[in-house]
């Protein structure tokens, strides 16, 4: 009886992964993070942006090389003299994937409705905008305030004829399943199995032409080792989120390329700046102590011993996926790893270890300086750095008390200000504004996890927000980042890459965004998929080996189904007896 039960369950499990029929040239991508929803007004995971990037084209596109604004659905645009109004001209003959014409009305409706209903991924861009469709191919967008992001208009345009019937009720919009598969990008959603896969089909109506690939399957493999094994076996063509220790093995395979793609993510050591209600240890209010702590951070040790080499030592925070927003800081002005220097600074400032227990006290005697360090247990990296941190502090004579929190708890501790230091990270958008906003005084109690404010920084933030000259804006941002760096409250340790790998024997033409350093998938606009070509002209239609394999799988799946049902019946019969 037990044996039958076990057999049944195993066969039952084997059914779950049986594959169904495919057509044409298929690209298979493995990733670990399942989707909550594919609805563009409600989803939020990195994994779902990839789907939207393919399904929905935008008015303006971004260059794969450097994110600069290029033509998208709009072939041209003009600015008004005051810079507040832009008039976009759509390409001729645009069609949705269901052959309905794509007009200025779709664009205007998306912008206005997303603003009114506060759609999660649109509202930050559209909050101050108003769009009017002048005619089928002309849309006029006006901003209430000067907006340096314009003419960039990168919100996903959704088909009005599908979404308008749902939209009167804001609740209905966010709970809509959004599996209509009507899009304007190179691919559209064909099938979605929650927790398992999303299958996308080439859109013949895409404005750049029909892609060379017919089908893309995004397949969930929650286990990182399983993803690697499937790539090696050729069952996947590309995988996202590779474990550091698998990178070397993958790169040894002549048919596989493993890359570390940078798009601005970084992890930092944050020191409590004292702007929240809970206060840091009084020593941390002294810039000299904060500087000494900065000098005790061994970035190379983290990159070598924790990240297996996959990281770049960081200076300031990176506010954008585009690295040109990070200022160059001359080497002699950087806060570099220097234990002796840090000790000298602390000695001079009077933080001495008078009782000889290895830990310094406040000037004039008093209690030991012990820092409460918050460890985020949501990943393996932060606890590993948490093991290094007490060592760094020990050699400059500071004590550490480690407190473990999950992300949610740590967030609350930070808001309350009940900590001295912690290590966590950010991944920025392309426009630097959101990341810069986090460190303004308005964000205390919300996103400002430095609990640090600076009036000059705040003023510059307002200035860049409305500065329409891109070069001048970049200068202002560099100045802001320099102020923050010198304040010594927020020490980025490294810029962290996305680790990805792809096979070279079936497809070619992977595109890194930004050029040379970025990832090939899950980047800001995901340009790879339209560019990919089958190697050696493998085209759909004829009977490729793949079709045979798939057919074989289907047959085996049916056999398994029959077997499993037979077993199930027997099992229930056994139970009845």
């Amino acid at each position, binding site marked *: 009886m037990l044996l039958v039960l076990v057999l049944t369950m195993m066969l039952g499990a084997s059914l779950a992964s049986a594959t169904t029929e495919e057509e044409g040239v298929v690209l298979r991508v493995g990733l670990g993070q399942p989707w909550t929803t594919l609805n563009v007004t409600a989803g939020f995971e990195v994994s779902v942006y990839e789907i939207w990037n393919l399904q929905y084209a935008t008015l303006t596109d971004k260059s794969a090389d450097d994110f600069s604004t290029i033509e998208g659905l709009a072939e041209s645009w003009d600015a008004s003299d005051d810079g507040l109004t832009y008039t976009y001209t759509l390409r001729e003959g645009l069609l949705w994937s269901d052959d309905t014409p794509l007009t200025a009305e779709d664009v205007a409706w998306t912008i206005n409705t997303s603003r009114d209903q506060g759609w999660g991924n649109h509202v930050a861009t559209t909050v101050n905008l108003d769009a009017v469709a002048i005619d089928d191919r002309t849309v006029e967008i006006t901003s209430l305030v000067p907006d340096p992001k314009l003419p960039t208009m990168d919100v996903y345009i959704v088909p009005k004829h599908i979404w308008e019937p749902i939209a009167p009720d804001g609740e209905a919009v966010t709970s809509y399943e959004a599996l209509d598969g009507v899009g304007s990008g190179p691919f559209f959603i064909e099938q979605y199995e929650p927790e398992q896969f999303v299958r996308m089909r080439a859109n013949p109506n895409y404005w750049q032409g029909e892609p060379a690939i017919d089908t893309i399957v995004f397949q969930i493999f929650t286990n990182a080792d399983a993803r690697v094994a499937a790539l090696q076996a050729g069952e996947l063509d590309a995988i996202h989120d590779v474990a550091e220790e698998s990178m070397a093995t993958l790169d040894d395979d002549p048919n596989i390329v493993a890359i570390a793609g940078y798009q601005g993510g970084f992890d930092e050591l944050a020191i409590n700046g004292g702007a929240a209600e809970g206060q840091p240890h009084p020593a941390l209010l002294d810039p000299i102590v904060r500087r000494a702590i900065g000098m005790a951070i*061994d970035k190379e*040790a983290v990159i070598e*011993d924790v990240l297996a080499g996959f990281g770049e030592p960081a200076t300031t925070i990176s506010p954008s996926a585009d690295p040109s927003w990070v200022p160059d800081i001359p080497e002699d002005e950087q806060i570099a790893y220097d234990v002796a220097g840090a000790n000298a600074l602390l000695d001079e400032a009077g933080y001495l270890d008078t009782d000889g227990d290895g830990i310094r006290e406040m000037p004039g005697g008093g209690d030991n300086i012990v820092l409460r360090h918050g460890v985020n247990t949501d990943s393996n990296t932060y606890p590993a750095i948490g093991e290094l941190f007490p*060592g760094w502090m020990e050699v400059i004579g500071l004590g550490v*008390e480690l*407190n*473990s929190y999950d992300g949610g708890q740590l967030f609350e501790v930070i808001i309350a200000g009940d900590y001295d230091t912690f290590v966590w990270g950010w991944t920025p958008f392309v426009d630097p504004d959101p990341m810069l906003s986090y460190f303004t005084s308005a964000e205390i109690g919300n996103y400002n996890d430095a609990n640090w404010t600076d009036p000059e920084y705040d003023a510059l933030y307002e200035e860049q927000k409305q500065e329409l000259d891109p070069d001048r804006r970049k200068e202002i941002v560099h100045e802001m980042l320099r102020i923050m760096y010198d304040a010594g409250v927020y020490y980025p340790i490294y810029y962290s890459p996305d680790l990805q790998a792809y096979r070279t024997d079936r497809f070619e033409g992977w595109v890194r965004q930004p050029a040379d350093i970025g990832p090939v998938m899950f980047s800001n606009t995901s340009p790879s998929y339209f560019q990919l070509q089958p190697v050696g002209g493998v085209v759909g239609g004829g009977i490729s080996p793949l079709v045979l394999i798939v057919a074989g799988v289907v047959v085996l799946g049916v056999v398994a189904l029959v077997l499993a049902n037979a077993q199930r019946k027997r099992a229930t019969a056994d139970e009845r007896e």
Partner: protein
Amino acid sequence: MTVVVGDRKRQRWVEVAREFWQARSGRIGVIILAFFVILAIAAPLVAGTDYINPVKARAAGLPQWGTPAEVGPLGTDHFRRSVWDQFVYGSRISLLVGLAASFLTILIGSAVGIVSGFVGGKLDSALMRITEWFLVIPFLPLAIVLAAVLGRSLLNMIFVIGITSWPSTARLVRSQVLTLKQRTFVDRSRSLGGSGLHVVRQHILPNVSGLILANTTLAVPISILTETTLSFLGLGNPQTASWGKTLEEAFVNGAIARNAWWYYLPAGVGIVLVVLAFTLIGQTLEQIVDPRLKDRR
């Protein structure tokens, strides 16, 4: 009868000790345990703390994953830390948690058992309900849930183990107390006007102390193994490297895949030996205290 209690008590303990040393398993247990206790106490003499600090280990040029042949006693780990130093200092934490948690277990268990058995009535049935409940609920999941909710610290670990493992002691002590209660000398003492507390101190405690001692010794292996498992699952204090924590770090950081035996073996062997030692000692004691068990071993 009460006049000679003191003398008899002393005599009894001497007897127990002699009998204990005569049993081979008891002897082996004591020798193993003595070794680890000495190691823990003498830690600063045989090991150092410098190379437990990854910063100092790196500064000293120790390699990652250094083999014992390359870098001395037990090699180094992924953070270039000395495994030997971690092992020696880890023995302190493992023994400390094991003993403290067992002490708490026995404290709660004996208190509940004595009160429940001696007072009886509604209090007894209420206490026994709670005991039953703890006995039925799967022990490790309960400990995991408590530890996850309370947070990771040494004290919490001791508390969690103590609070989850007392019920079997309570039941054992209670039944012993019930038996004693029926004996005449308790009755006589009560009829002579002895207060409840007096009776417990004079008659109940001395007679259950042997049982409690044996039970404590047998609780230690369970405490140590629980600490090890909870630490392995990531519920240990990140700043105190117990043997369980060492095993977790070895596993998480790939010591298995690269077969860095010097990293994952010592802590495990240490646990097995200490657990074995306490089990041997406990079983020997149990046999002496409860002679009915003797034939079965």
